[in-house]
């Protein structure tokens, strides 16, 4: 399946990656070659083959409903770029 300029821009927007037009052109090229390589999958007959999400056939373990995590806000916010009064700051959110 071919990938076009608009597809790259769309993916970049969904992934919130700032990309200018020249970047996008370069990525069209790279991504086309990668997808051509990936396209070999399409020739494989997978009729009736169940998808494999995990390499082991294991099931989800469950955790007891207990509060085990203490308040470590100060430690966690030491690596934060912008905080005030315990809140993470971002440019104003408009709804």
């Amino acid at each position: 399946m071919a990938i076009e300029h608009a597809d790259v821009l769309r993916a970049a927007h969904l992934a919130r990656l700032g990309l200018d037009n020249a970047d996008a052109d370069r990525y069209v090229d790279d991504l086309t070659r990668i997808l051509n390589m990936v396209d070999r999958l399409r020739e494989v007959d997978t009729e009736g083959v169940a998808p494999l999400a995990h390499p082991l056939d294991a099931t989800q373990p469950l955790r007891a409903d207990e509060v085990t995590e203490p308040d470590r806000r100060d430690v966690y916010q030491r690596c934060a770029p912008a905080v005030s009064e315990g809140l993470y700051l971002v440019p104003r959110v408009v709804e």
Partner: protein
Amino acid sequence: MLDLTFAEMARGLAAGEFKSVELVRGLLARIERLDPEINSFVTVTRDQALERAEAADAQRARGEAGVLAGMPLALKDIFCTEGVRTTAGSKMLGNFVAPYSATVVEKLAATGTVSLGKTNMDEFAMGSSNENSHFGPVKNPWDHSLVPGGSSGGSAAAVAAGLVPAAMGTDTGGSIRQPAAFCGITGLKPTYGRVSRYGIIAYASSLDQAGPMARSAEDCALLLNAIAGHDPRDSTSVSRVVPDYTRDLDAPLDGLKIGLPTEYFGDGLDPGVEAAVRDAVKVYESLGARVVEVSLPHTDLAIPTYYVIAPAEASSNLSRYDGVRFGHRCANPLDLEDLYKRSRAEGFGEEVKRRILIGTHTLSEGFFDAYYRKAQQVRRLIRQDFLDAFDKVDVLMGPAAPTPAFALGAQSDPVSMYLQDIYTIAINLAGIPGISVPAGFVGNRPVGLQILAPHFAEAHLLNVAHAFQKVTDWHQRRPVQD
């Protein structure tokens, strides 16, 4: 004393031949001397290391030390280490001091090992040459014009250069085994789920697995003993008994049945690599093993499958780097969109962006079934190849990489770089364990023999690798430094 294997060094410490502080001082001096050129460390934790070494020596003096107390090692900079900068080779995390430690780091610390620092790597573990690091490329200690392999290139180079006797790596598509092969050391990727992923900065969650990189299989066994086991913080870690991986190292190989996958000896395999691998197989025959040819028919689909699944998972795993709670944040964002787009554009390197774009595209509406679902189906076929093969043989053997280490800057095309992992990637898709052991040279460039075993058969895998190292000395060879 500094050039002993990890296991020999541990025995020396136990016998009182030297102290941990002496080892650590000696290695730190070597790092200071050699690493400006090799660039295998991103961060050296000198003070903490000396402190821990002293504590370990004191513990030993009291007679309370375990086997690994005071043993120096290094951690790939993908393991979160509380209070220590943890970058994943990315500008995005250039200033990220981890507020907690990975389970592997905690387990290693509990045994008394001493970390000398964090090793260089391809950004977010995406790469096969270590050229994708924000902190600059790593040089192969055997020839500084060559790459060390990737993504755990810093760990491999540090061990090969004798800067540490062992280092921890992670392997998503070959990132332990390929650099181990390129640098002439021993690297083990355990079964998926054998070692906790908690605190390891995620690349592709259904493929990532941590493992030891050291001089010998015996070294790897000692380290796997320390890090393996169920972790209640990792849903995908397995609650299965952890054996003593050193116990069966010396078991005889009588009747061992080795499979050589036809597909691992085809076009594109360097003749020098093939010759070294076939010689290694002959050594096994001389030890009493039987060799048969087997087929892994879906081998050529492993790379296409991987380049759907890994980027898809990565595109989602890397969404958390948004400039809000940690990591790089652009200057003066105009609005929320600008904050996201510029922080991420500035913080991520080329290869990471490429994989985020591929992953985002293949998961998006209208493409999911053709790419992601299809890849998951083929993944099952690839795993089945291995299950079928292990019905016939005990282990599989082949090259770890199609060529020996290549020159820095030689692979500029992403797709041809991806083909580097042709013999390692399927192993992650299937979740089985694999090890690369030094098996000769092409010129001055090391060759790695890859040995594969069924799920959770690490003890046997290490036994088979150790038997080879008892009768060969490839793993003892050292590059000349200075």
